[in-house]
C-alpha cells in the first residue's frame, strides 16, 4: 500500500520534476559543457579550458568586469544606505501622510525596466529637460553631453538605477523594521537615547539579516545588469560601442553581444556566464561570512576546536 501511494505521489509530481529537469537542470549542465566548446553558428568544437584562458586576455571581458564592478561598488552601497534612511524615516509613527510617502517611494519599482530607462535617456539627452534646466538656471553655460561622455553616462546609469531600485529595498527594510517591537524603542527613549543612537544600536543590529539579504540580492542583480545599459547606450545593439567608451558594457551585455551581435559563439558566451556564476557564489559566501556577528564566529571556532579535540 505504502509503496503504491508513493508511486502515485511520484507520478503526480513528475510533470513538475520533468519540467524542472528539462528547463532548469539540463540547461545548467549543458551550458557548463558548452563553456568548454567554441562555436561559430552550428560549427562547434571542444576546446577544453581554452575559453577560460582566452577570458583572461580578452580586453572586452576585462572591461565588462571592470564596468560591472564600478557600478556594483558605487550604486549598491548608496542605494542600500539611502533605503535604510528612508525606511527609518517612514517607520516613524508620528510622521504625517506616511501612506502617501510609502507609495510614492515604492512606485518606481512597478515601472517597466525599459520604460524608465528610455525616460532617463530622454531626460538626459543633449537637448533634454535636464540640460535646459541647467542652462536656464545658469549652472552651466553650454549643454552637457550626458550620454556621450563616459563618466557622465555612468552617472546617469547609476542615478536611474537608484531611482528605480531604492524604493524596492526600502520596502524590505520597512517590513523588517515593523517586526521590531515598539517597546524596545520606547524603552530606549525613556533611557534618553538619541534618534541616531536608537538607529545605530537598535534598528541596525536587528535589521542585520535583512541587510544581508538585500546586499546579496542587489549584488546578484547588479552582476546580471542588462536592460538599463542596453537601452541607455547609443542605438542599443546596432551601435559599435555600448555607450561612450564602452562604459555600458556589462557582463550580461557582453554575453548578448557574443551571442547575437558578433559571429555567434554560444560556447564562449557560456564561459562568461559561468564566470558570473562563480563571482556571485564567491561574493555571496564572502557576504555571509562578513554578516556573521563576532559571537557567531567565536561560537563556530569553538565548535570546530571541540570537534578537533
Amino acid at each position, binding site marked *: 500500500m505504502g509503496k503504491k501511494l508513493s508511486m*502515485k505521489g511520484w*507520478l*503526480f509530481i*513528475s*510533470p513538475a520534476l*520533468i*519540467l524542472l529537469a528539462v528547463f532548469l537542470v539540463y540547461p545548467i549542465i549543458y551550458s557548463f559543457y558548452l563553456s568548454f566548446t567554441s*562555436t*561559430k*553558428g*552550428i*560549427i562547434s568544437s571542444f576546446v577544453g579550458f581554452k575559453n577560460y584562458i*582566452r577570458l583572461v*586576455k*580578452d*580586453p*572586452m571581458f576585462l*572591461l565588462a568586469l571592470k564596468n560591472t564592478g564600478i557600478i556594483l561598488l558605487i550604486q549598491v552601497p548608496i542605494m542600500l544606505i539611502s533605503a535604510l534612511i528612508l525606511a527609518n524615516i517612514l517607520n516613524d509613527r508620528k510622521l504625517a501622510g506616511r501612506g502617501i510617502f510609502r507609495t510614492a517611494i515604492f512606485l518606481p519599482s512597478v515601472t517597466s525596466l525599459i520604460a524608465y530607462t528610455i525616460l532617463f*535617456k530622454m531626460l538626459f*539627452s*543633449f537637448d533634454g529637460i535636464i540640460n535646459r534646466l541647467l542652462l536656464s538656471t545658469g549652472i552651466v553655460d553650454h549643454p552637457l*553631453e550626458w*550620454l*556621450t561622455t*563616459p563618466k557622465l553616462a555612468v552617472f546617469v546609469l547609476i542615478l536611474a538605477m537608484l531611482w528605480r531600485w531604492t524604493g524596492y529595498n526600502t520596502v524590505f527594510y520597512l517590513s523588517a523594521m515593523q517586526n521590531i517591537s515598539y517597546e524596545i524603542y520606547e524603552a530606549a527613549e525613556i533611557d534618553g537615547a538619541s534618534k541616531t543612537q536608537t538607529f545605530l544600536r537598535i534598528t541596525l543590529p536587528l535589521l542585520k539579516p535583512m541587510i544581508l539579504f538585500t546586499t546579496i540580492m542587489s549584488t546578484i542583480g547588479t552582476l546580471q545588469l542588462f536592460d538599463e545599459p542596453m537601452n541607455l547606450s*547609443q*542605438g*542599443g*545593439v*546596432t*551601435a*559599435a*560601442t555600448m555607450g*561612450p*567608451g*564602452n562604459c555600458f558594457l556589462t557582463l550580461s551585455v557582453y554575453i548578448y*553581444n557574443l*551571442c*547575437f*551581435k*558578433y*559571429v*555567434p559563439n*554560444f560556447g564562449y558566451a557560456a564561459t562568461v556566464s559561468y564566470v558570473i556564476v562563480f563571482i556571485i557564489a564567491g561574493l555571496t559566501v564572502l557576504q555571509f561570512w562578513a554578516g556573521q556577528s563576532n559571537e557567531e564566529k567565536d561560537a563556530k571556532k569553538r565548535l570546530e576546536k571541540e570537534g578537533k579535540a
Partner: protein
Amino acid sequence: MKKSIVCLLVIALFVTIFGAAGAEDSDGKITVWAWDPSFNIAIMKEAAARYEAINPDIKIDIVEMAKADVEQKLNTVLAAKTTEGLPEIVLIEDYNAQKYLQYYPGSFADLTTKFNYNDFAAYKVGVMTLDGKVYGVPFDSGVVGFFYRSDILAEAGFKAEDLKNITWDQFIEIGKTVKEKTGKYMLGFQNTDGGIMRIMMQSAGKWYFDEEGKPALIGNQALVEAFELYKKIVDSGIAKPTNNWNEWVGTINTGESASVTSGVWIVGSIKAAKDQSGLWDVAPVPRLSTVDSKNASNLGGSSWYILDKSADKDAAIDFMQKIYAGDKDFYQTILINNGAVGTYLPAATGEAYSTPDEFFGGRAIYEDLSAWMKEIPPVDYGIYTYEADAAIMAQMEAVCAGTMTIDDAIKAAEAQLENQIQ
C-alpha cells in the same frame, strides 16, 4: 478505475507539455522577415501585392521586427538546428551575410541556377557568394550621397559647384563657415558610430581585413585618416552630438543640421519633413585626401535570402524570380515611393530615374546616385565587420578626448580584434 484516471491525467499532462507540433507542411503561405516599415517592409508589401495578383493561391505574410530582433531570432533558431519557426524569406544586411552563410551551412537555399546573376550589380552578388555558389537575391543599394540643405549652404556662401567632389577636410572647413555664418550644425554625429568610418574606408577601396580575412588595421592609411577626421569633426564643433537614430534623423528634420551623408535609403527620412521640399540637394560623398579615394561609397544595403528547409521554398523562389528579377515596373514604383535604388540592372534606367525631384530642387537625384553606384570601389566585407567596428570604436573616445594617439588606438583595436575573432 481511479488508477486509470490518474494515468490518463498524467498522459494528458505530458501530451500538453511535450506535444510537439508535427513537421511543417506546405500551407501556401510565404512568410517574410524584415525590419523597416517605411522601407523594406513597404517594398515587400508592394512586391507581395504584385505577386498575389499573378498567383492568387499564395498568401504572403510579412512580419515586421526590429533589425536586431530579426538577427537574434534567426541566430537562435538556426543554432537550435530546428526548421520550425523559420520564415521562407529573410532580409539580411550585407555586412552580416557571410557570417550566416559560413556558420550555418545548409541553412540557406542555393540559388545559383535559379537567377541570372549577371543582371545584378556585381558588388552585391559577391557579398552572397560562398565557394562559387550564390545564396541570395540582391536588394537595395547603399550608395552614399552628401545630402545638404541648399538654402543654408547658400546663406553661408556656398554654391552647388563648391560642394561637388570635395574632400572630407574641405567638408569640415565648409562646416565651420556654416556654423559661423548661420549658427547651424553641419551634421548630426555620433562619434562612436561606425557608419561614416565605413563610408570613408570603402571610398578608398579598403576594409578592416586583408584578402585572407585577417585583421588589417595596422598600416591601413585610410583608417588613420578616418580616425583623424573623426577627431576633427568632434573638435571643430560642426557636429551636433546625437545619441540614437531618432535624434540623428531629428537633426535633419528639424533643420538643425545642414547636411547628412549617408546611404540613399536615408532619402525617405529626409522627405519626411514635407516643409523642407525644394530646399535639399545632393553631391557626391567627400573623399579621403591621403590615400587613393573616390567620391563614391556605400553604406549598408541588404539582400533577401531563402531558407533551404522552409515548407514553401519553391513558391518563395518563384515569387522572387517573378518580382525581384523580372518586374521592371516594380523597381520604378519602389524608387518613386520609397526611394529604393535597386541593384537589378535591367531596371536601373527608365523614367523614374530621370524624373526631376521637386524635393531636391528639381534635380533627378537617382540618375546621379545610380551613376555614383557604378563607381563604388568593391570591397570584401568578410565576416567580422561588426567585431572590427566595435574594436575601433572602443578606442575612439580616448582618441577624441586626446588621451590616446591614433597609432596606439589602432594597435589596441587590432589586439582586441585578434582576440575577438579567434
